[in-house]
């Protein structure tokens, strides 16, 4: 890693040049909600003026640039008795600017799951391989809990990371591409004072977290609480809408559908991002549903996010962005659900381990 300091005005020139010449996406304000708060999404940007540098967090994550909500996996062309399968792995280089630390962590997690397993996804790789990521730090929102998940700082998965130290950005440069490109712009080596400002900035960020989720021993608590009434309680609120998985930066589930073209001369196999909260997620041929209850479906989402599956080495995949909690109309969010589970476990401990009778 190489460190540099760049004046914000110069950084603007740098982004202008970068965004002008590349297909780029960054945070933009799309709405103001009824509470007067700005709503942001990652959308196409072509100059620094398009980028909402002072944004909070985007409502939806950046995963769909690599895992589109809908994607054609292959085409089939029929000719007489023959058929031909056509597959193409398409992706073009993109620049993502303004990702938060947790967003970058989420991409690293997706890379682990989709590229480092037994069956790396060529579709994901094609889109992911030429990504230029510029991260930017920020003060957490009151409900961000990435610190609890240790994803509030980041050291890999970006080309460039900008820490806001007042008039300047403190740059962590993690790729030769970024380094070479920056050569054309005015930067300087950090001075003692810059380092101090960086330490101070990091401390302010770290001290600003208002939400904490105690995740110590969470995987084993989830195992112990497999039959907990907590799941039914929260499950009863769930609308089975799948919103949580759609906005989540690490949910990667999908369904596959094959359909004929209307002219019957070809067919398409399409993938659609899906969610374990949807009613038919665990429905199989013949109509049997392995998870017919809301509570069971919700439980599995928490299982996957906070206990992990074998395919990602039993690691938690939740990065603590709370997008799911913010978007859930029913008010279901990791902090409250996990705290409830903990309380449940603690009450069970006090109940079961009553002291032996004195003689």
């Amino acid at each position, binding site marked *: 890693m190489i460190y540099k300091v760049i004046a914000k005005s110069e950084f603007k020139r740098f982004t202008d040049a970068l965004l002008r010449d590349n297909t780029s996406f960054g945070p933009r304000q799309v709405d103001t909600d*009824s509470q007067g708060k700005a709503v942001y999404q990652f959308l196409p940007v072509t100059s620094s003026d398009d980028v909402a540098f002072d944004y909070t967090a985007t409502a*939806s994550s950046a995963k769909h640039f690599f895992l589109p909500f*809908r994607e054609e996996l292959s085409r089939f062309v029929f000719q007489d008795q023959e058929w031909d399968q056509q597959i193409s792995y398409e992706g073009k280089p993109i620049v993502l600017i303004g990702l938060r630390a947790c967003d970058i962590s989420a991409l690293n997690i997706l890379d682990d799951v989709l590229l480092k397993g037994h069956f790396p996804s060529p579709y994901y790789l094609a889109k992911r391989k030429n990504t230029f990521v510029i991260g930017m730090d920020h003060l957490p929102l009151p409900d961000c809990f990435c610190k609890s998940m240790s994803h509030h700082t980041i050291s890999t998965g970006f080309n460039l990371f900008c820490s806001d130290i007042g008039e300047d950005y403190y740059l962590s440069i993690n790729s030769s591409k970024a380094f070479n490109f920056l050569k054309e712009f005015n930067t300087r080596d950090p001075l003692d004072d810059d380092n101090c400002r960086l330490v101070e900035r990091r401390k302010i960020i770290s001290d600003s977290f208002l939400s904490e989720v105690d995740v110590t021993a969470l995987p084993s608590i989830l195992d112990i609480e497999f039959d907990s009434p907590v799941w039914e309680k929260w499950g009863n609120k769930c*609308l089975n809408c799948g919103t949580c998985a759609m906005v989540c930066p690490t949910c990667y589930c999908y369904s596959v559908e094959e359909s*004929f073209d*209307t*002219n*019957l*001369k070809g067919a398409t196999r399409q993938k659609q991002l899906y969610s374990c909260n949807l009613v038919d997620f665990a429905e199989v041929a013949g109509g049997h549903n392995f998870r017919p209850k809301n509570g069971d479906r919700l439980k599995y989402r928490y299982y996957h996010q906070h206990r992990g599956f074998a395919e990602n080495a039993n690691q938690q995949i939740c990065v603590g962005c709370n997008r799911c909690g913010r978007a859930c*109309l029913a008010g279901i969010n990791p902090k409250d659900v996990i705290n409830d589970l903990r309380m449940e476990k603690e009450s069970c401990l006090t109940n079961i381990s009553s002291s032996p009778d004195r003689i």
Partner: protein
Amino acid sequence: MKHWGFTFEKLKIASFDFTCCEGCQLQLANRESTLIDFLELLDIRNFRELSSEQHNDYDIALIEGSISRQDEVERLQAIRRQAKTLVAFGSCACFGGVNSLKNKFPLKELVAEVYPGMQIETMPVRKISDVVKVDLSIPGCPVNKEEVERIMVNLATGSLVTLPKHPVCFECKAQLNTCLFELGEICLGPITRGGCNAVCTTGKTPCLGCRGPSEEINMPAFVELVKARELSLDDLQEKIAFYNAFEGFSNHEA
């Protein structure tokens, strides 16, 4: 039609309109890009919007509209006797649709208001399945042509015919829409069957539930979230009643 060793028969189809605006039938002639291929799948036996020929040897009958007169009942029963597959086509046919709003008023008053001084025979509005057995429902106001095409292709090829089981929200999120609840409105997306690509909410108009309830909706939780946001329960009632699509789902708490 012969492809890849399979021979597909064209679908002998007829389309009939009852109490409705004929907007769903009109959709059949929509989507020009695949219109010729679509019509190629069909052997149209009776369909006054597409062809002047009229034959009564159809297998599939698309029924558009709801039932509001005695002569409609008889016509529908005759179609039922002929059709192997009777399709409730569009929200009026599936649920009664907008027409059902009429059922809230005394019939006499309605006739006096709309046809003053005339003798009009009319009955409370009913959905198709209240009158005859329905084999397949394709909801929507209007129906989504893309979905109709997919279903016709599946019927022609003998594939499984299904409707999406997830609610509209799921598709709304894929469009990166800001949730209308965040903007202070009531939207029926969480309880309504997807498959329309969230066309209304993408245009910043709340979903009124034209595609009817999605699979296993959670009405109590939905009413609860409207209350928690202190939104108008009258507005909720009005939206839920709009297409008469949520009959039988108790929302008496609202």
